[in-house]
Each structure stands twice: as C-alpha cells, then as structure tokens.
C-alpha cells in the first residue's frame, strides 16, 4: 500500500501504513540463518579440539566450513538483522512507507538466494580464497545487483519522505550503503577462468592491502555503522528518552566515517607491507578510540534515569551489554593496532577473542535486543516469555565470557610460546609448533562450550519469537502525518556539491597535502596558498554577508549531496592508501627478491590449496620479528609473493607458517602428512585429506587459468596444448617416481601430486639485480 490520502478535513494530512511485512521477513531470516551460522561455528570449534569432527569428508572439513561460518554470521545473520532494523526505523524516521514493495521483496528474496548459494558452494570448495570475500564471481555479481536494489529503494524512500530533516541513524545507513558498495566491488575485481572460478586482479602485496582495506571496513561499515544507526533509533525507543547528546552523535558520525576507512593496514603490521602504510593504519586506528568511545558513552548515557529498568527489561539488558561490548572491542582494536601489541595478537587466538567479543557481544546482543523489542510490535502481542528472554541474556553472556576468556588465554599462550627464545635470543624455547597446539587443547573445549551456550540462547530466542508470532497477529504500523510545505528551498545537487564551503574546504585540503607531500619551494608555496585560501574565504563571507551555517543546515535535509559528500569522505582514505600501491608495474620494478613463477602443475596444486581453505590455518608471511625469523627463516620480502593471485598471507596460525615450506621436508613427508597428520606430527588437529589421493587433478581447466594469469602479468611462457600436457605429465611422473622410491605409491594424475608440487615450490625466489640509480638520485 502506498501513502493514501486521509479523509480528514485537512488536505495536508495523510495516513501512512508502513511496510512491516518486509521487516518480519528479514527478522525471521536473520534468526534462522543466525542459528545456522552459529551451529557451523560450534562445529568448527569442536574440530579444533577434536580432529575426528572433520569426519574425513571434504565438505565438512574446517578449511571449507570456516568461510561458511564467517559468511553466514556476517552476511546472513547480521545482514538480515541490519536490513530488518533499517527498513523498520527508516520508514518511521522519514515518515514514509518504503518506496517500492516490489524492490523490498526483490531485495529480501535475492539476498536469501545469495546466502543459499553461498551455503552450497563454500562446502564444495568453490572459493576465491580471500577471507570474507570467498564467494565465487557469479554470486558476487548477484550481491552487487541486490545491493543496488536496496540502495535504490532506500534513496527513493528518502526522496518521498514527509520529514524534511534526516536523523543521524539515516546518516549511518547512507554511509553503509555507499561504502559497502565501494569496498565490495573493488575487492572482488576478478577475471573468470570458468563459471565457478576466477583470479583476483590484484596479487601479492597489492592484494593484501586491498583485501584488508576491505576486510577491516567490512567490520566497520557492515558490522558497525548500520548497527550504530540501529542503536541511535532503538535504544531511545527502548529507554523512552532521546539520545543523550544529539550533538555528540554528529561528531561521532563524521569522525568515524572519516577515520575508519584508513585503518585497514593494521591487519598487516610487521609484514612486508610498506612501513608508511603500516604507520598510517596504526595512527588512524589509535585515533578511532575517541569517536568509538564517544558513541559508546552516548549510547549508555541515553539510559540516564532509566537504569532501574534493566532489572526487568530484557531488551535494555541486551542493548546495554551490547554497547558495553562495543566499547570494549573498540578499545581493544586500536590497542591491537600498536605494532608491539600486534606482534602478540596477530596470527594468534587473541584476534579470535577480539572478533567474537564484537560479533557475539556487540552484533549478536544488539540483534537480540532489537528482535525482542520488535516481536511484540510486529505481531501485536506481548513477548511470549520475558523470563525466557532474561534467561537467554544470562546464558548468552556467560557463553561469551567463557568463549573470549578461553581465547585470550589461548592467544597469549600461543604467542608467548611461539616467540619465546633462550640463549640470548638465538634459539627458540619451543622449536616444535605442535607444543603450542597441545598446550591450548583444553581451551578449545571451553570455547566450544561457550559457543554452544550462546547458540542455545539464540534457539530460545527463536522459540520465543515463534510463539509470540504464532499466538499473535501480523500487523503493520501506521501513522497520521501533517505534510507541511518545506520552509527552505531545496539546495539542489549543484548547490550542495559546489557551495562555497565545499570549494574552500577542498582547496584547503589540496594545499595541506601539497605542504606535507612536497619539499622546499613547493611546500612553501602550498603554505602560502593555504593562507591565501583562508583569507579569501574570510573576505568572501564578509562581502556576501552570507551564513554558511544555513548551507550546512540545508545540506542535512538534502540526501543526495549529503550522500556524495559522505562518499568523498570515505573515498579519500582508499585513494591515498591504494592508488600508490596498485598503479605501478610491480614485477618489472621490484628490487631485492622476486618470486619464481609456478609451473602449470604447481598452479593446479595452489588452486587445490585454496579450495581446501588451508589459508584459514596457515600463513605465508614471515614477519619482521625474532620469533618468526628463528622459526621460519629470513623475513618475507615484498617481491616473494608478487605473482600470487590471490595472496595467501593468512590471518591466523593454527598451524605453522608455510612461506618457505618448499624443500624443508621430502615429498614423502607431505604425502603421509596429508593422509594422516598425526602419523607425522602427534597431537596435530589438522584434518585428514583422503580424497586428494583418489581425485584427479583438473588439468582441463589449466589452459584458461594460465591464460588469465598471463593477462594479470604472471610470466607463464607461451605453451601449446601439447606442451602444457607434456610439462604437467613430466612433473607429475617425476614426483610420483620420487614418492615410489620412498615407499609411497600413488598414480601421478592425483591431486596429492599437484599439491605436493605446490608445497615444494613455496618460498622459491630469485635475486633481482640492484638498481643502477642511487637512492638519492632517484629522488
């Protein structure tokens, strides 16, 4: 139903019936997919404690299910919850029904189809091999299209609104829509080799930077900004009082939007990422402390005078705990971005603790609070069981605390054991990696119990909402609105984007950059130009007698120029970090070490490595840290992964780093290790991979894959089909013969042969001649 004219005397009065059907659908989907995602989480946590839970089955192994868990929780659970919250609050904040019911339905069903496709393809091993960006290219295109549908519907609704001003929650939603689109598209740029496979256009260090620019900001703009918008709407509703400080919410918004986008490189500290990028990521991460805590305090203080309600109201309990977890996670995040702290937290379970205090505490509890608040309104019946909701809260909270406490202890144990040295720092105290695995086994069990408790709480929520819905009746909210003519003329796109404040601000930013990035005369001229710009601005204001405050006020009621300026704010961070890194011909200009390209068989082996999700447990990056260098060899150089599309630096070491694995052990070691890791390494939690010994290597796909790699700049020599077959056949036979001599027999065309070929190539690089120009001359 669209906005229908009322029959009352006043023509400017209309009654609006909101589209709450879509809200109900997204709510149910979020709860259902949330349970699926958490169930998979509990299963993979069990696998880390008991390897037998991998069931010797390809589609149930940890490496394939971990991406399913992360994608389900991020995109299915939080995604659906976010859409429910946005559709509900936006309609009420702008006093207009969603513009198109068709687009809402297309959005809902399209999103569920995407999730279903992900739930099928990921266990099958169809992946892009990049964390939180694993979905294959046809699904990626569907995600982009459905996101556009959502954006059109959202902005169309804003255009039809009956409330001229835009509440701060709407700002957070706008930032989410714009930024997620930008991040998702850039990080998913790929060239297909088949319907289900592609290679990302970025490789090595470039891919690492783009991936973590995306990965970090997926947390920022998918798991944080929309939920903050939801917080700014639902917490005042539940507390029945306005937000503590609306002014602070504005500062919170602009600071967060401007700073967040820069912080991605903190995921790559102490690696071969350029140091200036690492510093930039660290500085901006530290700056995030201020706006994040400003937002947290704003949320908590909204309950001023209503704290007594916490004793009885489960909704407020969930909201307050969620905001507290937000504060803790956003304190911990910048802390972990300090290079020295990151040396301990990165690649260890500390990161897992941090992520889960955010996901379970902030996202999961905000979602639960919102569902308990929405259910009685959407189905016109009091919540079926308030006591069950309260029990859910305590069960969930205990579950989180058990989970994160176990992971903090585990993370610190792993990091300290693996970096510990003796004899004046020349020898590792624990040379066997497996010591860190066996020492933390009990903590993995505690983590599983904590996760299971949290899941049990959500099953109780599902039961509670289902009973409320079944005994109640679905109703749509409606409201009578007095439509008044706007008291200000619209600012228009041109007025918004090219208003004097924007022009002067842009010029000032340009000259600030000129001052900082140049030296000598140019730097002095930039300072002079900056002063001249500020003087011109002052004179302009004086002569025209205009108030730019009014321009700003108008901007806040005009969504399109506001959206574009928000986009500019987030683009700046991406441009400064990514453009210098991706614009140069990497291989031709690399200095120092350069990776030796893979043979066709090694490339096939690499794709098997990615398919099995080995990057979920093994890194390929030796950091510039004593413990890493003593354990794995010289630290990784930028050129050593330059041909890796996608990069495989990883983010967690459940097993050891593999950057220089090639030649470390004989091929037969890998053969037995892949068949039964415990035969080689007692106490290992790695799954068995029996199917690699029976399945044949997909040689037919290689011509297309090599053609795409060549397009991406990887120097594969030109080969005819016969030459390709011959190259593969020879290397397969060589490896098969080598294994046979060592007492391990397997036909040469099996996947294990290709995988061993790849493993034995890891870390093979060549020295590149030093440049002829000197350091100073190049300047």
């Amino acid at each position, binding site marked *: 139903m669209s906005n229908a004219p009322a029959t009352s005397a006043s023509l400017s009065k209309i009654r609006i019936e909101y589209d709450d059907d879509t809200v109900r659908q997204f709510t149910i989907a979020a709860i259902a997919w949330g349970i699926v995602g958490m169930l998979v989480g509990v299963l993979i946590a069990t696998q880390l404690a008991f390897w037998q839970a991998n069931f010797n089955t390809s589609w149930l192994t940890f490496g394939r299910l971990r991406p399913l868990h992360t994608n389900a929780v991020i995109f299915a659970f939080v995604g659906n919850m976010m859409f429910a919250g946005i559709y509900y609050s936006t309609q009420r904040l702008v006093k207009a029904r969603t513009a198109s019911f068709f687009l809402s339905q297309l959005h809902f069903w399209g999103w569920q189809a995407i999730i279903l496709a992900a739930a099928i393809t990921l266990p099958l091993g169809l992946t892009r091999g990049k964390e939180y960006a694993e979905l294959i290219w046809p699904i990626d295109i569907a995600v982009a299209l459905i996101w556009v549908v959502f954006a059109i519907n959202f902005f169309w609704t804003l255009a039809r609104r009956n409330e001229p001003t835009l*509440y701060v929650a709407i700002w957070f939603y706008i930032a989410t829509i714009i930024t997620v689109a930008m991040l998702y598209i850039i990080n998913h740029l790929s060239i297909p080799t088949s319907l289900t496979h592609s290679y990302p256009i970025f490789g090595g*260090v470039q891919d690492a930077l783009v991936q973590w620019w995306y990965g970090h900001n997926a947390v920022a703009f998918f798991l944080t900004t929309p939920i903050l918008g939801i917080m700014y709407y639902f917490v005042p509703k539940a507390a029945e009082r306005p937000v503590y400080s*609306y*002014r602070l919410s*504005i*500062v919170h918004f602009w600071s967060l939007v401007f700073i967040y986008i820069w912080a991605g490189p903190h995921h790559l500290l102490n690696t071969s990422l350029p140091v200036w990028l690492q510093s930039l990521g660290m500085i901006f991460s530290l700056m995030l402390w201020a706006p994040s805590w400003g937002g947290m305090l704003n949320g908590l203080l909204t309950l001023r005078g209503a704290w007594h309600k916490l004793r009885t109201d489960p909704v407020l309990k969930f909201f307050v705990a969620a905001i507290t977890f937000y504060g803790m996670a956003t304190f911990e995040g910048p802390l972990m971005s300090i290079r020295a702290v990151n040396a301990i937290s990165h690649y260890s379970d500390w990161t897992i603790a941090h992520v889960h205090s955010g996901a379970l505490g902030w996202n999961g509890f905000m979602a639960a609070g919102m569902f308990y608040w929405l259910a009685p309104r959407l189905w016109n019946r009091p919540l079926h069981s308030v006591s069950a909701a309260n029990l859910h809260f305590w069960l969930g909270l205990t579950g989180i605390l058990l989970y994160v406490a176990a992971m903090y202890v585990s993370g610190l144990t792993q990091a300290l054991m693996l970096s510990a040295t003796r004899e004046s720092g020349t020898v590792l105290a624990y040379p066997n990696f497996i010591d860190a695995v066996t020492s933390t086994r009990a903590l993995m069990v505690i983590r599983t119990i904590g996760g299971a408790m949290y899941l049990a709480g959500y099953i109780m929520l599902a039961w509670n909402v289902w009973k409320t819905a079944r005994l109640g009746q679905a109703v749509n*909210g409606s409201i009578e609105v007095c439509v008044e003519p706007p008291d200000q003329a619209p600012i228009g796109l041109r007025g918004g984007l090219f208003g004097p404040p924007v022009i002067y601000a842009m010029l000032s930013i340009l000259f600030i*950059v000129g001052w900082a990035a140049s030296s000598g005369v140019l730097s002095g001229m930039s300072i002079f130009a900056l002063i001249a710009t500020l003087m011109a601005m002052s004179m302009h204001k004086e002569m025209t007698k205009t108030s730019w405050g009014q321009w700003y006020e108008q901007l806040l009621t005009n969504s399109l120029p506001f959206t574009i300026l928000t986009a500019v704010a987030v683009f700046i961070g991406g441009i400064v970090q990514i453009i210098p890194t991706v614009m*140069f011909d990497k291989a031709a200009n690399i200095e120092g070490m350069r990776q030796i390209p893979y043979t066709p068989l090694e490339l096939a082996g690499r794709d098997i490595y990615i398919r099995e999700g080995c990057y979920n447990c093994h890194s390929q990056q030796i950091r510039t840290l004593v413990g890493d260098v003593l354990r794995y060899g010289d630290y990784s150089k930028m050129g050593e992964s330059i041909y890796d599309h996608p990069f495989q630096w990883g983010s967690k070491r459940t097993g050891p780093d593999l950057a220089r694995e090639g030649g470390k052990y004989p091929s037969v070691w890998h053969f037995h290790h892949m068949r039964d890791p415990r035969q080689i390494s007692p106490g290992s939690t790695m799954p068995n991979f029996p199917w690699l010994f029976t399945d044949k290597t997909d040689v037919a796909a290689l011509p297309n894959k090599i053609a795409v790699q060549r397009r991406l700049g990887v120097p594969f020599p030109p080969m005819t089909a016969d030459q390709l077959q011959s190259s593969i056949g020879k290397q397969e036979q060589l490896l098969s013969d080598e294994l046979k001599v060592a007492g391990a027999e397997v036909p040469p065309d099996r996947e294990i042969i290709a995988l061993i070929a790849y493993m034995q190539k890891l870390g093979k690089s060549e020295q590149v001649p030093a440049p002829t120009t000197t350091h100073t001359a190049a300047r």
Partner: protein
Amino acid sequence: MFHRILVEDWQRALSIASFTIFAFVFVLTFIRVLRMPRKRVSHLENLPLENDTHEQRR
C-alpha cells in the same frame, strides 16, 4: 620505481597530511555542531520517540 614509491621516506608525509585533513574536518564539524540551534537539536533528537500505532496499541 615500485620500490621507491612504496618505501621511500616522503610517503611518510601522507600520515601527517592525513592527520591534518582529519583535524581540519573534525574542527569544522565540531564548530558546526556547537552552533546548531537548540530547537533543531530538540526536534531531531525526538524523532525516534514519535509513536505509530504499534506503540499506541501497547
């Protein structure tokens, strides 16, 4: 060239430029926020509290 672009010292200036830009934007926002009329703030902060029939039925 690749090496120079990625590792040379002048790129460190970007950290300073970025911080300065942020400080510039932050100060502008802060001043603007402080000068917002009280009536407008009151209108905006009360927007979530306007009830529809969902609340009225309760």
